């Protein structure tokens, strides 16, 4: 922390380096001081925390994806991180880095948003816990202010909750940057007929990874059936998603895919 103070902003934090080193090679980042945070103790552990999880920011994503604890408690997160990149990237890229890089297409974000994770930020003034939904402020931008993202807290989820993650990429390869990604986590009521707690998160269709609040609201208290699924998927595509056109896909294709993938996820979660 004091090192970061002293260097006064002219510093980049290096964890796995899978985004940072590419930016340096491209010349987007130049002549900056790097502070390697990989080996700060505490940042490298996966710990159970009540029925939830605490992930050290410097744990690599493949380790998390393969962790029996994560698989058991949050298969949704494990599923998403398994396709975050190639095996080589997964062995280097850290969970904290994937979030702090703040790509709208970050593969770890939708699942963590759907699981309502929070991030712990530590700075000279102390530490604060920020819900992940409030952490991103734009493409490549976060609320970090000369702070270090140290931990990701995933709160316990009801036992009967289930999740689905879809990553739509231009190829079959996990290293692709997604065109659209969707994570849905849902907890049905005891009768399994009513949507009670549904969280829908979207990647690569807005300036940041987002929760599809309009779609979620539309489902709340509604019957689990085709009509409600369709309505929610349409709202996610039309009201929640704010996609742009880029080299990976047009805005209209992205919108159409949000509708398809949200509907598929909800349908899959309706099957019991």
């Amino acid at each position: 922390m004091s090192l970061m103070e002293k260097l006064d902003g002219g510093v980049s934090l290096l964890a796995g380096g899978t985004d940072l080193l590419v930016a340096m090679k491209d010349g987007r980042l130049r002549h900056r001081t790097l502070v390697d945070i990989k080996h700060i103790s505490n940042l490298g552990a996966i710990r159970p925390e009540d029925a939830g999880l605490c992930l050290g920011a410097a744990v690599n994503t493949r380790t998390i994806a393969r962790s029996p604890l994560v698989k058991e408690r949050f298969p949704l997160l494990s599923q998403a991180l398994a396709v975050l990149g190639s095996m080589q990237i997964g062995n280097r890229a850290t969970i904290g880095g994937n979030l702090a890089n703040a790509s709208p297409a970050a593969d770890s974000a939708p699942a963590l948003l759907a699981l309502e994770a929070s991030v712990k930020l530590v700075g000279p003034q102390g530490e604060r816990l920020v819900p992940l939904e409030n952490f991103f402020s734009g493409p490549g931008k976060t609320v970090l202010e000369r702070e270090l993202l140290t931990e990701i807290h995933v709160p316990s989820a009801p036992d009967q909750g289930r999740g689905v993650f879809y990553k739509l990429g231009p190829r079959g390869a996990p290293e692709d940057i997604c065109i659209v990604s969707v994570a849905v986590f849902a907890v049905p009521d005891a009768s399994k007929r009513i949507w009670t707690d549904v969280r829908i998160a979207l990647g690569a269709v807005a300036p940041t990874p987002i929760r599809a609040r309009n779609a979620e609201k539309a489902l709340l208290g509604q019957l689990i059936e085709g009509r409600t699924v369709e309505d929610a998927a349409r709202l996610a595509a039309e009201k929640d998603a704010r996609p742009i056109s880029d080299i990976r896909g047009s805005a209209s294709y992205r919108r159409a895919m949000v509708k398809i993938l949200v509907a598929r996820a909800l349908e899959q979660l309706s099957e019991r």
Partner: protein
Amino acid sequence: MSNDHKVIGKSIPRLDARSKVLGEARYADDLSLPGMLYVKVVRSPHPNARIRSIDTSRARNYPGVISVLTAQDIPGEKLMGPIIKDQPVLCGEAVGYVGDAVALVGAETEQAAEEALELIKVDYEILAPVLDPFKAMEPGAPQVHSGGNIGTHSKVRRGDMEAAFRDATVVVEKRFFYPRVEHAYMEPEVAVVAPDPGGGFTVWSSTQYAHLDREEVSRVLGLPQSRVRVHQMMTGGGFGGKINPHAQCLAALIAWKAGRPAKLRYSREESLISSYKCHPFVMDMKLGANREGKLLALEATLVGNTGAYLLQGKAVITKSATHVSGPYYIPNIKADAYAVFTNCVPCGAMRGYGVPQVTFALESLMDELTGRLGLDPIELRMRNALDTTLPNATGQVMGASVPIKEMLGKAKLTVQSLKPLLQQAPAKGKLRAVGVGCSTRGIGSIRKPSRSTAVVSLHPDGSATVACGHVDLGQGSDTMMAQVAAEELGVDVDRVNVVTNDTAISPDCESTSASRVTYLSGNAVRLAAAKARQRVLEIAAGDLGCAPEELRLMNGSVVYREQGVTLAGLFSKHTFHSVTSVAEFLPDTVPPDPETGQGRPAGTYNFNVHVALVEVDEGTGQIRILRYLALTDVGHMINPLIVEGQVHGGMMMGLGSALMEEVKVENGVTNTSFATYLIPTTFDVPQELLIGVVEEPEPTGPFGAKGFAEGSLDPVGATIANAVSKAIGVRVTRLPMTSERIHELLSQR
């Protein structure tokens, strides 16, 4: 045929495999010479501009910078290129595309060279570019060069089009689009050039044609070719993209100016921006048939966007026009193919050379016909397939090795075997279908006859050295040449050293391209080895008082009735150190006539039949290939393992342009890294990829062999597009079939 062969037809591991696996193979970038400078290139940021002035003064004074060069410093020729020499080595007056080379820096370190680039100020007068080939052909379009924007026009004229279309019961017609594709060789361009004490230069490069490097470097430096020696280093792929020694010429200029060794290695981004690509084609094709499904007439207008320079464009366009009718007999053909200049990145040679483009269009129309005629796709193709009596689009009749009907028969069995998978209900929202695609290609250059030369030296210990100029790019041709020589000389393959990579030793055989090496150099090597053997046997026969036919060569001895005479003894007695023979092979060809396209342009042809079973996601438009069969015709296999490797590679390369690859140009190339220019990965390999080889020996080929390396790419786009079109019920007319494009077609249903 193969029964009595010792090494031909055997899956001998590649001779370079060990050094590559152990990391011992030396590539050009592994080379570092004392005093070596690093070269960096100032490239144009504008697609079309005049250069008013270039200020290099600040760069010259930058610490570490030794030389700065612009066009006016070039001592020799200022234009270069593989066939048409129309690209400025360095642009002096104008730039033609984003990435055109304008100035050079040679510095003590790569970083100093890089930093000095930014100090060179080029004053451009920016002009309106023309990027679309159709706009470029309109009157009043900006002229890329004086002399009009049509760089070349190739024609095929056969029969009476009007009558034929009048007689046709069914006519199908569509416009097709084939993408601009990058070779994406693993190793980007690299060249190291050093001045020799005697006034010449030595080049170490990653290249498909060492002798072209020699020719161009000598032209640019104003030296005789004999003063330039080129060593092709281990080359990490070429696929047609390394037949343009621009990096070699640029490094040579700095080496010449500074009098010191110089290295230029392109970054991936630089390679993607500046190197020539596969031609994107827009193809209007019209195909007519009678009620029985006999093809009567084919009319085609093919427009290739050749970019700012012609380079190889003329030859690519000619190849596409002469291959327009595929492996079918069509009595009436009119084809007009154009290479059009634009201010896009230049296009040149790439694996396929115009054939995958026309194959996509023709095979798509063949499937359209089946729908209209109610015929099975394989049956329609069978009824029109070439045989040893029917002429192709150039009027050439191939007298032998035309196994297309046999291949179609095999494909039919495969299609039948896929029925259960097809009928098995796929998951909800998934559509399945089978597609077929066929292709043919002439082996070797068709624009002019091309000769291969080989020198074989048989040494007293029975080992042999083969010198031949077709460099190995990683496909395994050196191993196959060793097999050919070993078979003729009766020795093990590891006793043969094949030298293809040194212009001072290996004769010029034209580039390693056009699927020509096995056929042309295979023949030259075989003939030279046979000649050396014959000479030795004749000498021994004189000693033994028998006929040479009674003797054979085996492991360094001449064997006569179970008795052996060692070569060492024989050579010593007759004052030989080694026995050296030279042989040439020139196929019997006639280039296509410029007005009609008629001729006999290739010594032999290769055929391919592919079958794909695809599954399309109705919601997202994503395509999965569940089964793929690539049937190829190789004449006779010299090395089955290498055949398999080539077919795998060609098929996957074709899959790239079918499903995902497209170099996008908005002023300049916009997908400038492998994060945005996507090529297939292991995750994109079909669930099951089968390779089938049909062997019908080519009488003029070495041991019956012929070329096949590009053929395995040619029909891939067509095959997958036919399967996808059937699955979604809409004709695919544009590659690549990205999920977004297929989604769009699905929503048009």
